């Protein structure tokens, strides 16, 4: 029988004996792919007490049925492994865009399980069914940009490559795997690969993704692009007024930042104006996201060549800059990143920044240097904790006290005082090379807090540099500030920052609150959607929204679709009353795979993955700490969340501070939604059986942590 969507094969790579074998991947179909497949494989094959850098540790790179199928924004890949840095060392994943995920499908694989340790540095070369292990001695010690270039030159320009940098080689916990230009998967995957002496991966594929109903795939893709897609983060109204648009963002700012008069000023052959990009016009969508201008204002245009991004996505969220001022410092001038590495370079400069060529360009140029250096070193930021902690060390007396004086004096401070971009590059280099005490930051917030004796109060403190949303070592990622209890709930659930954009995409869309509220309440009922920083007490509908977002993110990282764009909750179309289409994910699944997916069945399969995450987290916490209670030991929320802004009370307009009792109620409701024991936050047997995870229930029972 023909298989659609999936390739039906996975690749098992053993680095110890340098073997590559294939296996049937359809046995994992219930887990969708990507994250779900990866979690199941790790659970089945890697005992959760395995040290992440132990030879017995594995990682699973996986894509899903939608990856490379032609569906817009389906270019992502998920990598599952055990965490080296967050509390409990439990299941975690990295996610990467670029183009390598679809290429893995075209080469014929839904997933790649990598195990063992090579005796010397190698990179993997995969050309359809030919898999070879190439010597990487000449690449060891090199940055990711050069490594990817050399690998591609050696293998051929039809290959997509991904490499680790020096951070991964040096087993820095905060390390990435980098592909294309500025696209990376983080969470410490660099060091997992480094521990296996695997420098990189190159993939070329002459095959295709077979889709059950190609006409439907094309029709749904066009429908999505004509009627549903907005700008970056699916913001559904333009930032500035456009003649066709009823609404624009009240603040004049959102991620649909392309507008008439705004340009790619450094485009080859002269400036290109973004013009208007009306709803329905497919050929103008890519001018909607002008991320550089969103980040830095109009001054950014002076350095923008064009926008880039991932395979299949018409929203180009990677601003590609040519920052010529960097040439003076012998740093690369062509830089591109869309997220955190592009935003916080200024944290390294307590003395402040100095403009380069245009008024107001300092922050952007410094971030050009820092993002390129970070990507080259393959250094991860833990959604900004790296920058926050560096700032804390460099600019506060308490932070500074943890750095030995000789080391402090060895920093090239003249560069810091001159706001020289080489300063941030040098500090990052020290972290990636584990040079000195400052490199403790690269081991993770938990390791740093332990080594420097910072205690629980470090996580509790009310300080803009403390964004830790749990005591587990990761910060909030669009939490209560965007969606009150809902955001905070799903921020607690993972073993890294949550990476869920379901709610922030709506609340920050720029559409009038009443318009978005009508859409959300239409989907989820009354009281399901609060105004930002104007939170109402917890209710059942909010718990349903939290469950939808939590499970939905699992779907996106399994299918794979980009969660920065999906779900299509809202629309820019006035004719649709700005209402999106939450059935779309299931419609894609049905058209691509030929199976009768419905929204219910997609959400059911996605929730299976949520249950696995919870079970594996419970087991890891039990192994590491003897914990029998995730509510207490994993989902605990630091005090700053409730005690910030002492002049305001929770639920008052203008604050996102939360109420302790109300959040306990929120956990009750959410656990009930998920079928978890209220006292411990651990899935019950009935819940696990319902999702076909009886073996996991038995495992919990065997460890004495299955709720009664």
């Amino acid at each position, binding site marked *: 029988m023909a298989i659609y969507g999936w390739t039906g094969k996975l690749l098992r790579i053993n680095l110890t004996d340098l073997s590559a074998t294939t296996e049937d991947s359809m046995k994992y179909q219930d887990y969708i792919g990507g994250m779900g497949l990866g979690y199941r494989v790790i659970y089945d094959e890697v005992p959760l007490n395995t040290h992440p850098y132990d030879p017995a540790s594995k990682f699973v790179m996986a894509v899903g049925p939608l990856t490379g199928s*032609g569906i817009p924004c389906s270019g992502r890949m998920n990598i599952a492994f055990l965490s080296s840095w967050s509390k409990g060392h439990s299941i975690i994943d990295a996610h990467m865009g670029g*183009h390598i995920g679809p290429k893995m499908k*075209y080469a014929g694989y839904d997933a790649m399980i990598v195990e063992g340790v090579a005796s010397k540095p190698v990179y993997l070369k995969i050309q359809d069914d030919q898999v070879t292990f190439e010597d990487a001695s000449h690449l060891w010690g090199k940055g990711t*940009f050069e490594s990817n270039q050399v690998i591609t030159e050696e293998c051929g320009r039809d290959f997509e490559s991904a490499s680790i940098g020096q951070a991964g080689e040096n087993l820095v916990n905060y390390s990435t795997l980098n592909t294309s230009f500025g696209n990376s998967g983080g969470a410490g995957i660099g060091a997992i690969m480094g521990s296996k002496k695997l420098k990189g991966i190159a993939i070329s594929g002459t095959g295709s993704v077979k889709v059950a109903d*190609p006409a439907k795939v*094309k029709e749904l893709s066009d429908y999505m692009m004509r009627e549903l897609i907005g700008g970056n983060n699916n913001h559904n109204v333009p930032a500035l007024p456009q003649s066709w648009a009823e609404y624009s963002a009240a603040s004049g700012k959102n991620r649909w930042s392309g507008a008439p008069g705004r340009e790619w000023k450094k485009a080859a052959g002269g400036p290109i104006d973004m013009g208007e990009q009306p709803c329905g016009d*497919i050929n103008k969508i890519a001018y909607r996201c002008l991320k550089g201008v969103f980040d830095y204002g109009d001054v950014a245009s002076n350095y923008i*060549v*064009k926008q880039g991004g991932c395979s299949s996505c018409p929203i180009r969220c990677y601003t590609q800059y040519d920052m010529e001022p960097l040439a003076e410092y012998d740093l690369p001038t062509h830089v591109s990143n869309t997220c955190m590495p592009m935003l916080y370079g200024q944290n390294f400069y307590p003395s402040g920044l100095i403009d380069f060529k245009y008024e107001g360009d300092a922050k952007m140029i410094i971030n050009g240097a820092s993002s390129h250096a970070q990507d080259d070193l393959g250094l991860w930021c833990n959604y900004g904790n790296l920058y926050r902690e560096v700032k804390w060390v460099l600019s506060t007396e308490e932070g500074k006290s943890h750095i030995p004086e000789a080391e402090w004096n060895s920093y090239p401070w003249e560069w810091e005082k001159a706001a020289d971009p080489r300063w941030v590059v040098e500090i990052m280099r020290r972290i990636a090379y584990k040079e000195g005490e400052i490199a403790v930051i690269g081991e993770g917030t938990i390791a740093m807090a332990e080594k420097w004796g910072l205690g629980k109060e470090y996580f509790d403190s009310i300080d803009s540099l403390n964004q830790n949303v749990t005591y587990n070592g990761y910060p909030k990622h669009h939490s209560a500030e965007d969606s009150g209890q809902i955001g905070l709930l799903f921020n607690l659930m993972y073993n890294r920052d949550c990476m869920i954009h379901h709610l922030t995409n709506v609340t920050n869309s720029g559409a009038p609150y009443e318009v978005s509220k009508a859409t959300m309440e239409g989907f989820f009922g009354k009281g399901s959607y609060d105004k930002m920083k104007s939170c109402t007490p917890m209710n059942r509908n909010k718990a349903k929204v939290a469950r939808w977002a939590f499970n939905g993110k699992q779907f996106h990282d399994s299918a794979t679709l980009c969660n920065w764009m999906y779900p299509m909750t809202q629309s820019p179309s006035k004719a649709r009353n700005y209402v999106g289409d939450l059935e779309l994910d299931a419609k894609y699944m049905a058209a691509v795979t030929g199976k009768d997916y419905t929204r219910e069945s997609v959400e059911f399969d996605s929730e299976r993955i949520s249950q696995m995450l919870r079970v594996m987290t419970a087991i890891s916490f039990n192994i590491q700490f003897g914990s029998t209670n995730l509510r207490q030991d994993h989902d605990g929320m630091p005090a700053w969340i409730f005690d910030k802004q002492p002049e305001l009370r929770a639920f008052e307009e203008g604050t996102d501070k939360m109420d302790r009792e109300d959040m306990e109620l929120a956990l009750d409701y959410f656990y009930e939604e998920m079928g978890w024991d209220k006292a411990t936050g651990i899935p019950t047997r009935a819940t696990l059986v319902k999702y076909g995870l009886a073996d996991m229930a038995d495992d919990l029972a065997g460890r004495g942590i299955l709720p009664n």
Partner: protein
Amino acid sequence: MSDETKTGLNGFLDSQMTRRQFLKISGKSIAGLTVSATMLSLFGCTQEQVDSEQVVTWAMPQGLLVVNAAKCTGCKRCEINCSLFNDQECSSYISRVKISRNLHIHGKDGLLMGNFTYYPDTCRQCEIPACGEACPEKAILADDKGIKRVDNDKCIGCGACVEACPWHMPTINPETRKSSKCIACGACVLGCPTAALSIIPWDAVTAAAQEIVA
């Protein structure tokens, strides 16, 4: 407006003549030509882009294909739409338009060469196609619109067309063993989110050209 009416009105330029004129410059960029403001607007480009060789035009049977490298953002929707439309599956390798191979390393250019120069390669629909000339089975022939198509019944998948094409635009589909050669269907153009690819119908090109003459 039909070609016939236009010829009657003006008696000087018609679409066929326009096409022939553009065929002469096909294969080169149109740098060096002075292009009227109307035509620039029609092509969605600027004189500066023309002068800096960002814009290449190819005379296709149904219109002028304009490729504007400065606008290409490397999303690959052209390859996706090509393969979904023509092959009923999604693939990069057998796509008739090719961006993937240019994206990361293309000579001294591409993302991994440290710059943002990349663009889609397209079939030129050559008047005398090297692919067709080289085909031992004479399987690549012009249809009644002048589009060179592969006759799958004749194609033996030998790859002579791939080798003969100076730009290696056809590809042998590894599964079907047939040459995937562009049939100027325009699926890539319809799906391009920046209009880096566009096809301007000959009527419109001719009308714009009339203005120069007038």
